[in-house]
């Protein structure tokens, strides 16, 4: 096996490294650090952050890809991630059709011809399920989870006591609780997933627990990478419009009025359709379906970014207009500091709160948008695991009688927890950073 990073992997990791570098830089600036501590002073924000980090961990785990070169393996030549390796037992072996969570039989009857030659309908047992020892396995799974959680919490406490705790204590207790619950829950599910389909299987017998975990990366990528596109556009254009005014302002305003006048979904649809046709015309661009899906995801991110920078741009322009009237900018002009330096030194740093608020606020919206776009048919590649694709399938399953509810349920839970955590966190960020909330 050899390391084989996809384009989105590289982008996600560089975003992480960039974020961390910014964090280290911010540690030096006392005012910024204080604001961050203030954000985490709320237990709700702490809990949300732990959940978000949990999701992020899965996304990162799923963003280290390898190419299988071993000719003895059945999946030789395919590109798999660390998460795929961990879930190997559920990735490669699938059932024939639907089965409920923790079921031992298929969901629908099949026609079977028995030894005597009599045909009758019966529920076939699942192929990759070993139901014996349910409680033992459960205890084992939870035990591992508890041990792991306690160990990590203990290490963190040691680290804190080593002089890293400053000022008013943060609500670590809520963070630990959340962390412990998530770890125990996941380790239980993981251990059980060796013996059961813990969230059931879909129409072609694929494991839904695996599918839901794989979807995390898709959602997180769309939520975070889009920022990479919107931010530079909005920042450069918004600040130039607000600072230079005159014809620059007119031009940029024209640009974003034009873009925002096109209904968002339609613009995205038109973009994605164009891209799809282009990709269809050049099938030779991509070596594997994974790479093809990856490029398609990247295109989607770019299109989402290009269509959604206008709101942030408008806000940044207004704020730049305000800041450039401030006396400290006048003072800088009186010092003969040139425009670029004024923008870089005085205006951009004072826009950080708006940028941060809009990043965290947009994140949940983008995760939700993915589902809708996949439904409309202009989302991620149909072969890619995503909550949108899961819901899209589930729609037909709900019409069946009896209902197949678990794939909708899995997508719902995974998405709801992520989006709720993101929303609660962004609320807190906005509450702390928005200067209008000072009173």
């Amino acid at each position, binding site marked *: 096996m050899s390391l084989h990073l996809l384009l989105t992997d590289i982008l996600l990791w560089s975003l992480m490294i960039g974020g961390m570098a910014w964090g280290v830089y911010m540690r030096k600036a006392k005012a910024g650090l204080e604001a961050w501590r203030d954000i985490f002073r709320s237990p709700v924000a702490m809990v949300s952050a732990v959940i978000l980090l949990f999701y992020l961990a899965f996304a990162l785990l799923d963003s280290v890809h390898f190419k299988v070169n071993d000719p003895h393996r059945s999946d030789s030549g395919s590109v798999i991630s660390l998460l795929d390796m961990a879930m190997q037992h559920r990735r490669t072996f699938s059932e024939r059709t639907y089965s409920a969570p923790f079921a031992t039989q298929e969901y629908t009857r099949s026609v079977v011809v028995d030894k005597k030659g009599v045909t009758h309908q019966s529920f076939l047992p699942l192929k990759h399920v070993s139901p014996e020892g349910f409680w033992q396995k459960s205890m084992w799974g939870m035990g591992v989870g508890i041990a792991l959680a306690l160990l990590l919490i203990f290490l963190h406490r040691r680290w804190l006591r080593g002089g890293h705790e400053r000022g008013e204590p943060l609500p670590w207790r809520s963070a630990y609780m959340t962390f412990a619950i998530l770890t125990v829950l996941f380790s239980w599910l993981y251990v059980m997933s060796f013996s059961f389909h813990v969230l059931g299987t879909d129409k072609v017998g694929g494991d839904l627990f695996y599918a839901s975990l794989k979807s995390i990366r898709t959602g997180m990528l769309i939520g975070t990478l889009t920022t990479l596109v919107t931010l530079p556009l909005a920042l450069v254009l918004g600040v130039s419009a607000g600072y230079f005014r005159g014809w620059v302002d007119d031009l940029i305003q024209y640009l974003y009025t034009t873009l925002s006048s096109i209904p968002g979904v339609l613009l995205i649809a038109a973009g994605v359709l164009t891209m799809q046709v282009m990709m269809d015309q050049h099938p030779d661009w991509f070596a594997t379906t994974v790479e093809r899906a990856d490029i398609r995801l990247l295109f989607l991110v770019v299109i989402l970014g290009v269509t959604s920078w206008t709101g942030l741009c408008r806000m940044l322009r207004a704020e730049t207009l305000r800041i450039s009237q401030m*006396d400290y900018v006048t*003072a800088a002009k*009186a*010092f*003969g500091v040139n425009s670029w330096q004024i923008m870089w*030194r005085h205006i951009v*740093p004072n826009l950080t709160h708006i940028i941060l608020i809009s990043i965290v606020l947009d994140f949940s919206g983008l995760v939700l948008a993915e589902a809708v776009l996949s439904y409309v048919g202009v989302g991620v590649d149909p072969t890619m695991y995503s909550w949108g694709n899961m819901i899209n399938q589930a729609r037909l399953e709900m019409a069946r009688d009896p209902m197949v509810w678990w794939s909708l349920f899995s997508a719902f839970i995974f998405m709801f927890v992520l989006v709720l955590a993101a929303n609660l966190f962004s609320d807190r960020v906005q509450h702390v950073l928005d200067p209008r909330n000072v*009173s």
Partner: protein
Amino acid sequence: MNHALVVEGLTLRTKKQTLVENVCFELKRGECVALVGGSGSGKSLTALAIMQLLPQGVYPVSGDIRLESRSLFDLSERQMQHIRGERIGMIFQEPMSALNPVVCVGEQVAEVLRIHKAIPKAEIKARVISLFDEVALPEPHERYGWYPHQLSGGQKQRVMIAMALACEPDVLIADEPTTALDVTVQAQVLALLEKIKRTRKLSILFITHDMAVVSQIADHVVVMQKGHVVEQEAVDVLFRDPTHPYTRQLLYDASGRMIKRSVHEQKAPTVLSVEALRVYFEKRGMLWGMKREVTKAVDGIDLTLCRGETLALVGESGSGKSTVAKALLALVPFQGEIYLGSTRISGMGERAFKPFRKRIQMIFQDPFASLDPRMRIGDILKEGMESLGVGPRDKEAQYAYLQELLRQVELPESYLERYAHEFSGGERQRIGIARALALKPEVIICDEPTSALDVSVRSQILALLKRIQEETGVAYLFITHDLALVPSIADEVAVMCRGKIVEQGRVKRVMYYPSHSYTRTLLAAVPKLPDFIYGKEDI
């Protein structure tokens, strides 16, 4: 019962701290009590407590407030609604924002009548108009349907007064009602309040920080400091013989006498001269056509500033005095000639002008807007030095230079590493001065550097500016709206009105023998401290 309002042992707290403690005073019928103090003294909170309109999180813990022997703390919210507006009227500092912008002013006054009095509809309008008449709003019939943005600041404050008086209350609470107004308008509003007090036998609780205003309007003075009443006395007694050191300080600062100016006998060399300076602003029409409106912000002025001297540029808001400052720094396009020493700096491009920038610097009005909140003090001071190449380059020498600068403005050297938001207004203003001084300029333009500060801080800053002038020989162009300040700070004065200079000359001549009618109006409007004031003989 002689007392209209009694405040007894009032204590206000938030969860974390006590804001007002054990405040007691009485307001007699037909009397005006002034509540005086610096910012944070708790005077406005006391007023809001009387109205029971305290901001969220602030609550009274003890004490009593009685309106004609009725305790207001015993009343329910519903009963209190009948006190507000009907028995106690209130006017606020900012007439701009205190009126609802989307309701016409007549309706806003009529609303008070409608909720408190059973007056037939037809009569209400007539009542409002007669109220407008009483507060001397011109053309009251027409003004009824006007919206707040169509009125001037003074007119808005008159509407507020009409609103407060509509139900003929016993008590009027005026929270810094004239602070946001120009001097001439302030004089008119004060005269109006005085007149109403007499004709209606109204009791007024007047909240202010300005001792001169106090001496004009109050009968009795309550001095507050940090949430406590430190002294209360009848106005003439207090002014003549204050007992508490804080009161003495207030009076001392208000009189502005601590700065004695040495009179320059021989003419010093000119460092800055301005000839026929004009700044016109064009309002850009929408995309197509529309005739362009031209605002003449500065319309042909001449100024001369000599080395080591101070020229005060006095004018009311909108007179164009701040635009002059911007033009001198070449921050707005202008016409006319500007000479720095003997060099003509007008008409230079930005690149050619850059070397001259270090010779002319500026100090700003708002200490909170003038320092970048995201920068360390050290970086703020360094910005100009690095941009214009002043001061040592070597890191250690530069550090020593910055420390010396802070020493010069009487701040501890440790401030270099800290951020602006950690400091008070006075400290920030000192940092602003240090930033200008860092470049060793010949001219510093001071744009109302003290008007956003408390009186006591104001006099410290003025003293600092004077000391710096004596040490370095820098010339100040001191822009201010406060004519009372001029004798203590300036050698020369120029009075500006609607973009033009109407009078210019040595301070003594202009202040005591003004020739232009506008100067005379301005001077007459300045509230004066009484002659018998404490410490007069010190001079």
